[in-house]
């Protein structure tokens, strides 16, 4: 039996399965990160002293990673636009850049972590470091997941383009929505952890 609403929009919501599914997934992700942001606020307002993030973390490195992630969001949306223009090579170019920028983000993040660990700054050292590693670690895991998904759509997953273009475009739109959400989370993480 064929699964309905794969490429056709549902008559009740006006959405395809993938569109509705990815937004509901992102709603659950909002609650996941929301719980941790709530934890951060709770820890901070109950602390007598709270360190200034800039005194512990490197603001230039954090800002650089922010620029990297925003740039990857731009290239991700350009992937979608390229497919809309029936341009598979353009899609592959921008998807390759997106993955490259994602890996650069992870490389810089791992450098930051290694630097912290080399100075004995582990999560167990302070509440600030505990919440810093928890929030950024969870975010980094989301980046890794995004790289795997995008890597699949750049490689074997792109074969779908030749058999069902609409379905492939819908999949890339869903992958893009996830990636922009990951970018959006970092947009809040950067000032909260590094600047305040």
């Amino acid at each position: 039996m064929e699964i309905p609403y794969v490429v056709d929009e549902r008559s009740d919501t006006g959405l395809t399965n993938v569109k509705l599914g990815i937004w509901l997934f992102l709603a659950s992700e909002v609650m996941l990160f929301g719980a941790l942001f709530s934890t951060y606020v709770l820890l901070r307002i109950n602390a007598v002293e709270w360190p200034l993030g800039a005194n512990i973390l490197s603001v230039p490195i954090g800002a650089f990673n922010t620029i990297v992630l925003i740039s990857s969001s731009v290239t991700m949306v350009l992937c979608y636009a390229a497919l809309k223009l029936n341009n598979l090579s353009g899609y592959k170019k921008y998807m390759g850049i997106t993955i490259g920028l994602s890996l650069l983000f992870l490389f810089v993040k791992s450098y930051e972590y290694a630097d912290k660990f080399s100075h004995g700054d582990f999560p167990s050292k302070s509440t600030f470091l505990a919440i810093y590693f928890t929030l950024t670690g969870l975010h980094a895991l989301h980046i890794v997941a995004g790289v795997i998904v995008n890597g699949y759509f750049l490689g074997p997953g792109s074969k779908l383009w030749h058999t069902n273009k609409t379905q492939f475009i819908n999949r890339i739109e869903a992958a893009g929505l996830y990636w922009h959400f990951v970018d959006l989370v970092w947009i809040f993480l950067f000032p909260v952890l590094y600047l305040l």
Partner: protein
Amino acid sequence: MSENAEHVREHIKLYWKIGGALLVLTVITVAVSYLNVSVFLAIVIALVIAATKGSLVASYFMHLIGERKAIYAALALTAFFFMVLLLIPILGHTNTFGEHKTIPNAHAPVARHAETH
């Protein structure tokens, strides 16, 4: 088809502009953090800029402008529960702001300060 393609090309120009605006706002975020203002004001400024950037990403990159009502309904519900999640723990502790709590791993300067009491 060509009209549709022209529409997509206009969107591409917009994406580049939004990307540029996000980068400029990132620079402003960092620059503002060097201003000599109170912690409260610094938090307000940083969060306003972050919210502006987030709105740009959600509205244009995630195409929330012109999205279906079902998505708006799901997001409205999410936003409500997000605020509950964020505010309930805070409102439950308004009488203890600034007082030390026994928090796991909080044994740096904060814990030493608390031991003197």
